């Protein structure tokens, strides 16, 4: 009898105390990547996941839910339990710009941000045999002819070029393309005067296959100081893009803090830094969750003004 009571008491004590001892993370964490497997964004996420595994001492299961520029993953993650065992990976514009288009049901307030891990760089590129060499030359050519043929990839770059067109008094003839490859093809083949492009235009520029006339990200292109940013050129618009880790709203604060510090350590790893700087050609930047939320809110206001400006 006495033994039985002891066992029961021990069991009761164990079950009551157990949760307090079970420190996060005590089971595998699912990382939902908002891009299809195999791309540059997915690779960065997987490298970070591997680093985080060794820091947290727990498995990270990478699950790809690509589509709509991260919106599919966002819709999924925000409906999961906020226990820190399901987190997402998307980009800043998924939260700062996409909700403004009115096509998705979420806003930046529907998720908790964990951290920003690295930045993307974007540029305006022109064909190598274009008659102009720089931004001013391009504007002059377009004014002379009356219009500019422009290959667009996403709604944000379209809004920015429309804004510039309005300001300069040029008619912008927007050629829609699907994905980066279509725009690349149009600009390399000389079928358009100007195209939006990711940092993968930089090696092409270094090989002399195309001209880069401006950078859209506010930080500019560090290794090519001759490429002006849009603010250098006198436009108060920019496209800031960065990789963002997030979780469902009201995430367990302890879990969020642990993930945040794990990421802060993971971005310092040699493998990741090499990937970002030399392969992906983005830039290193780390922001904690609060800073990420603040900069996304700031971007959203800027994009709102941009959209209002081109509507008039």
């Amino acid at each position, binding site marked *: 009898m006495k033994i039985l009571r002891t066992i029961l008491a021990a069991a009761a004590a164990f079950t009551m105390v157990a949760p307090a001892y079970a420190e996060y993370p005590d089971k595998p964490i*699912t990382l939902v990547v908002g891009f299809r497997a195999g791309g540059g964004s997915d690779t960065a996420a997987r490298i970070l996941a591997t680093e985080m595994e060794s820091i947290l001492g727990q498995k990270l*299961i990478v*699950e790809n839910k690509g589509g709509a520029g991260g919106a599919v993953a966002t819709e999924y993650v925000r409906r999961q*339990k906020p226990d820190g065992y399901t987190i997402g990976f998307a980009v800043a514009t998924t939260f700062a710009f996409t909700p403004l288009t009115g096509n998705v049901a979420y806003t930046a307030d529907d998720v908790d941000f964990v951290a920003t891990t690295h930045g993307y760089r974007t540029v305006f590129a022109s064909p190598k045999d274009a008659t102009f060499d720089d931004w001013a030359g391009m504007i002059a050519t377009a004014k002379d002819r009356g219009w500019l043929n422009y290959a667009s990839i996403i709604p944000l770059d379209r809004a920015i070029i429309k804004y510039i067109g309005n300001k300069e008094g040029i008619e912008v003839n*927007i050629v*829609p393309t699907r994905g980066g490859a279509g725009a690349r093809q149009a600009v390399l083949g000389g079928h358009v005067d100007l195209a939006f492009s990711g940092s993968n235009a930089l090696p092409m520029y270094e090989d002399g296959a195309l001209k880069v006339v401006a950078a859209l990200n506010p930080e500019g292109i560090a290794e090519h100081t001759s490429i002006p940013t849009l603010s250098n050129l006198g436009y108060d618009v920019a496209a800031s893009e960065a990789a963002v880790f997030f979780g469902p709203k009201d995430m367990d604060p302890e879990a969020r803090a642990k993930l945040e510090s794990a990421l802060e350590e993971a971005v310092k790893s040699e493998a990741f830094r090499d990937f970002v700087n030399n392969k992906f050609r983005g830039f290193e930047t780390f922001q904690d969750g609060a800073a990420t939320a603040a900069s996304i809110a700031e971007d959203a206001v800027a994009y709102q003004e941009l959209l209002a400006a081109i509507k008039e």
Partner: protein
Amino acid sequence: MAGKGGTKRTTGPTRPVELNQDLVLGLVITGFGLLLIFWIIPAQVNDGGSFGLPPSLAPKSLAWLMVAMGAVLTVQNLKIHGDPGRGLTRVDVAYLAASVLSVAFMLVLMQWVGDWAGRPYVGFLVAAPAGLVLFTLLHTGAPLWVYLFNAVAAPLAIYIGFWWGLRLPLP
């Protein structure tokens, strides 16, 4: 249509439904095309903000093409009588419904158990054997050992191959 009949004829030879199916098909296609043109396309495609060809142009032209083909099919089959092909039988419809419901049952079970467990492959390991038993039942006349083999060996092989080999998560 689904679920109607079927039980009486499961063993008999497949008999075509008694009416010219291509005639009905032509009418259905025409009707669907018109439904697209007058209701679905206006409701689902927004032409605002377009500068070249409007986004609704391709869907509308395709829908008109479908209406035209539906009409051609209808007219062709008004003249010719009888059904040259095998056609769709009631057994087919019942069978299709049974197959789809089996897969749907497995998916719902997998989703539900997976959500509840929150760990990879728990939902799969519960639902896949159930699904395989149902699928094997659909193929009538399998010996008993096959049910056991399909329900145990196959999910286990997929689990080992996909999870341990390829690290692909399933619910």
